[in-house]
């Protein structure tokens, strides 16, 4: 591909959840007030030998996770409420809590009842390179404005390479998808 400016375009944020939720199809969550930031976090383990001093001679790649931060201003509150509930491991109602220690993935496949991870999708109408994050959830702090002016919703997502069986037939994490560039349907 030749060098060029990359313009993603007007980015719609979509979500998709498990079959127990109203988000079982690809659903619009909202539009951002400014750029959406995707931050892959690569984990590595340094290999240190005494002969190389304090600098590693090689690094072992220890998988990756991803953070997505966005400030939504044109948003579907009903969808957001479901996103919040699913991110709290399937809370029965908005603001309630599930049992402490409830697993987000529930040991079941994507979008199956009991798996509360969401598919987070970012459209790319101009750039033509949308993003699909397979196992996303709201984590850490969110910010919701309330006042006479329009509210901004600062959402922080975390994406991990969820799997049911870490052994994966002897392959480990090989082939596990963290993200790709095809939207959910």
């Amino acid at each position: 591909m030749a060098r060029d400016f990359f313009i993603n375009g007007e980015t719609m944020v979509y979500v998709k959840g498990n079959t127990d939720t109203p988000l079982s199809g690809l659903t619009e969550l909202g539009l951002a007030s400014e750029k959406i930031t995707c931050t892959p976090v690569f984990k590595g383990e340094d290999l240190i030998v005494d002969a190389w001093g304090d600098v590693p001679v090689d690094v072992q790649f220890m998988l990756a996770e991803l953070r997505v931060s966005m400030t939504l201003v044109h948003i579907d509150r009903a969808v957001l409420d479901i996103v919040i509930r699913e991110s709290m491991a399937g809370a029965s109602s908005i603001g309630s809590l599930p049992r402490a220690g409830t697993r987000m993935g529930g040991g079941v496949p994507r979008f199956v009842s009991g798996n509360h991870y969401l598919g987070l999708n970012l459209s790319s109408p101009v750039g033509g390179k949308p993003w699909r994050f397979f196992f996303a959830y709201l984590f850490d702090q969110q910010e919701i404005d309330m006042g006479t002016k329009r509210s901004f919703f600062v959402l922080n997502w975390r994406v991990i390479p969820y799997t049911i069986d870490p052994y994966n037939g002897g392959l480990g994490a090989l082939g596990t998808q963290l993200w790709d560039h095809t939207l959910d349907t």
Partner: protein
Amino acid sequence: MARDFQVSKETMVFVRGGEHLSGLSISTCTELGLPYKDIIVSPRLIHKEINVDDYGPNIPFDLMANLADATISIDFIHYDKREFELCSRESMGGGVGVYNPDIFDSKVVPDGTLAPAGTLIGGNKKMFASGNHFLSLSLIPFDYDNSLSEEVGVRPLRFRSVVLVDKYELPMGIKTSILKTTWRAIPYVRPINSSLSTSGSSTSGGLIGRYSGEICSSGTILWDRNDDFVLSG
């Protein structure tokens, strides 16, 4: 093999028990679980010093190799609870009663049942025979390929006769339980089953000059680089 960083890769722990567990998956080579962190294998090599006066009181002039055992420390995080309970019972001498695969969780062998004090784990039987409660523990890397030579491939580590020892920790709470276990491997061997002919040589078993019931340490194995997928003794 040339010098290199040694990465043993993701390791699955397999276990196999005796024929008295027939009908249960542990009677064949079955998955026990995945570790939370490094598995620590600690062979302990035993030597006896031979002292002579000419060497003074402190430094031996030679050493006798007096076998070895090994401790394997494994913290499981993704494991089969049922298989582990069986390992625990076998390590406690096998409990009492009869294992019934159809009513495994029944009152026939309640969890925590002890065998009588003094019960032999090996029971003078060969490995995997009914009544031998030693387990075979195999640490197998994910991409193990037994068609490759030892110098090239990533080889498993199999301890042929192990038991759980000391104490193990089984946390109970809302967080994922990390099962901390310690295993001991010894070079178990059953007494020689042969009789002595009138000429003084063994009539069976192929071991010349050995007496029936003798325990011979020659050639005993503490660990090897095979697996138990092919059921051999």
